[in-house]
């Protein structure tokens, strides 16, 4: 009995120790984004508190001319960058979505298991390619190619950025959609066939609606990645501080603006503060995306459904 008691006491001790260690790690890691957030808040609100610009001006004004000094007095309207980010994300989504969905459906519904085993790692390989490589290839291959077809006065363009981003987020959306489609139970497909449906009717009316939660998640993850991409976009978008007026003209995004000017702006100056506020905005946007994902997942389960 004594041996048993000792063993039990030791087991309880180990259990407690493990719990403490794991909790500590978890808490520390959870603290990191919180701390980052707090830091961004601290620096990012300088524009409003120190330099007395309004939120409306920041979000909606197209005048970007912050003073690079500690006195300020310039204009901090980030609307052109916000629009640029949104435009390039939307463009990449529109370009990639048809291909993503087609690839996902092909992989899960049509391809033979052998083909799937080749295709899946090939797509996943995409995600391993560094952004700088994308940017580089975009710069050296895509831009001349586009220039030869479309009128591109400045070589760099919104379109080029959209295409590069589309390729970058393609694997994310495809693999998540493919997983969601594959997770639809085979029994639902069989039931659909048993009622006299063709393969496409089954895909359209049963499989895709059943997978729409996962597909939506994939799209939003892709969007989040697009929103946050700096390097590849910077290399092909031209970084002109203007509103995105045409597909064939250069523009700027929040990320390119921050990456381009952060190094040069004076510490503590208005310009610097403006950039920090843009960083804060990006941070808040990612939060928004995550909540959006949860919301859509909840929406996609009908009333009364057991999750």
């Amino acid at each position, binding site marked *: 009995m004594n041996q048993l008691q000792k063993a039990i006491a030791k087991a309880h001790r180990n259990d407690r120790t493990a719990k403490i260690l794991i909790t500590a790690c978890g808490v520390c890691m959870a603290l990191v984004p919180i701390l980052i957030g707090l830091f961004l808040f601290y620096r990012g609100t300088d524009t409003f508190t120190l330099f007395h610009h309004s939120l409306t001006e920041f979000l909606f004004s197209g005048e970007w001319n912050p003073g690079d000094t500690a006195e300020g007095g310039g204009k901090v309207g980030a609307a052109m960058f916000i629009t640029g980010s949104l435009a390039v994300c939307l463009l990449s989504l529109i370009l990639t979505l048809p291909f993503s969905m087609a690839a996902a459906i092909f992989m899960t519904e049509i391809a033979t298991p052998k083909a799937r085993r080749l295709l899946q790692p090939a797509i996943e390989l995409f995600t391993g390619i560094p952004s700088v490589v994308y940017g580089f290839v975009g710069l050296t291959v895509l831009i001349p190619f586009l220039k030869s077809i479309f009128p591109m006065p400045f070589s760099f363009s919104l379109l080029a950025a959209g295409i590069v981003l589309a390729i970058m987020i393609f694997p994310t959306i495809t693999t998540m959609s493919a997983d969601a489609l594959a997770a639809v139970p085979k029994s639902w497909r*069989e039931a*659909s066939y*048993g009622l*006299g449906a063709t393969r496409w009717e089954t895909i359209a009316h049963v499989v895709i609606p059943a997978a729409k939660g996962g597909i939506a998640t994939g799209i939003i993850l892709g969007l989040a990645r697009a929103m946050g991409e700096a390097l590849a976009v910077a290399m092909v978008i031209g970084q002109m501080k203007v509103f995105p007026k045409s597909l064939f003209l250069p523009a700027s995004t929040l990320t390119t603006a921050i990456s381009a000017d952060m190094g040069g702006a004076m510490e503590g100056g208005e310009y610097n503060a403006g950039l920090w506020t843009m960083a804060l905005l990006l941070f808040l946007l990612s939060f928004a995306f995550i909540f959006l994902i949860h919301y859509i997942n909840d929406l996609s389960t009908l009333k*009364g459904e057991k999750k």
Partner: protein
Amino acid sequence: MALTTTTYGYTKEHSGEARPVSADAAAADSGSLTFEIKHMDLFYGDHHALKDVSMDVRTHEITALIGPSGCGKSTFLKSLNRMNDLVENCRITGDIRFEGKDIFREVDLLALRTRVGMVFQQPTPFPKSIFENVAYGPRLQGISNKGQLSEIVEQSLRQAACWDEMKDRLNQSALGLSGGQQQRLCIARTLAARPSVILMDEPTSALDPISTQKIEDLALELKEKYTIIIVTHNMQQAKRISDKTAFFLLGELIEFDDTVKMFTDPSNPKTEEYITGRFG
């Protein structure tokens, strides 16, 4: 409250609900043959899963397929509505005729699956509302008028003896129902497609005894208008509800006869060994 005497002689109370006649029930009357299967063989790759099976299925009868696990009874059932087409490397030879026509050469695949419906072992309601589940088949057939669909949904749910339970939650998810209710919903869904045959692959093996009994009662009612073929590993169930029983063993059809005859005095000694529990 109307009292009716059921097949076993005990009385059951009906609420006033009517059980409407299915307008498009099988044109053939009892005594004719719904399925004629002659010398059918089935191969999964090199594996000879069904060997020289021949059987006639009469209209408006319940035919039970029994046999130990792996004997081929489910495989045989799935061949009748060509669900085996979905399996890779599946090859079928021989003659399978539905209402006189060869199901591989003379009947359109979609039409076959509409006329020959199937209920599976695990209840499989779609992640849609109850209404949309039942309306799925009719929508495939081109019916989109809301009024028509409502009528068909109500009729099918009544025939499946679950209208009262579900009429107030037609727009709620079907996944919120209990197992027995889900299975009856699946039966309603199959009925909505206006079949003349219902194939049931061990429909009650995942259900509790009360739900099982409800579905058996349902099968007995449905056989007046439909032809039913049911795979079951429960011999008592085969005895309770079927008119004819087929015994499969290792891919062969060993014996096929009236249920009473088979269970009182089977012709084949292997049948007797199986049904008296001496193996399997």
